């Protein structure tokens, strides 16, 4: 059990340290230009950016859903050959649910950009 705890501790600590070492070491010098948004060096044309069209958030949700599930498929792919009985059932149900969601989204036209 110890090696697992050790690795989690070391890498967890490393992650946190690396996150904050920049804030600790970097010299803090600001100026008015640094506060304005970066627009390729020219003065921003619009002070307040208005609301974004909804289709951007739709694409973000779809990506979030299907990308995370794709990540789950990798371990499943390893055991698909020797999966029998309940493992196979879980695998099939998992895939079916995702496929149903995907088909529904496709038919509703969520993937069309216009």
């Amino acid at each position, binding site marked *: 059990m110890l090696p697992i705890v050790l690795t989690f501790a070391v890498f967890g600590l490393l992650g946190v340290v690396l996150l904050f070492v920049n804030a600790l070491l970097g*010299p803090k010098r600001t100026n008015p230009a640094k506060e304005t948004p970066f627009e390729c060096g020219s003065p921003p044309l619009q002070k307040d950016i208005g609301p974004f069209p909804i289709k951007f958030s739709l694409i973000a949700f779809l990506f979030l859903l299907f990308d995370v599930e794709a990540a789950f498929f990798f371990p499943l792919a390893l055991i698909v050959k020797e999966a029998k009985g309940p493992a196979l059932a879980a695998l099939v149900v998992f895939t079916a649910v995702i496929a149903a969601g995907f088909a529904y989204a496709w038919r509703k036209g969520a993937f069309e950009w216009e």
Partner: protein
Amino acid sequence: MSGNFVTTRFNAALGWARKFSLFHYPYVTACCGMEYMSTACAHFDIDRFGAGWTRFSPRQSDLILVVGTIPHKLAPVLKTVYDQMTEPKWVIAFGACTLSGGIYDNYAVVQGIDQIIPVDIYIPGCPPRPEMVLDGLLKLQQKIQTSEPDWRWKKKKS
């Protein structure tokens, strides 16, 4: 006295870390850009010195490579991009036009970008050969290593 030894070792380590992980912002405008392409590509490969990572946003770059002529119309843009860069930041003036306006001594061109932003390393040449550019980069790395790196905690102390 031991405090002194710790800080010098720490400064050396900090300088070493900063000099070999330079993210550069290629502020390319004119003919030197062609020579910058040769320097950044496979033949002369700027990546061998740790500075190969090209970032096109001042928010993620520590070194701005001002490459090519800077006319007066472009001066405020260069000033804005320089101001928006994260600290600590360095500037390399690449090519004769950035040093002194080069062959364009007329109404349109800024006679040297040190009239706009403070410059660390000047690379002469019109355009400078890729080897000269790499030499300039080495000089900047040496400057980063030897100069006194300023970090926030130290300022509060002194």
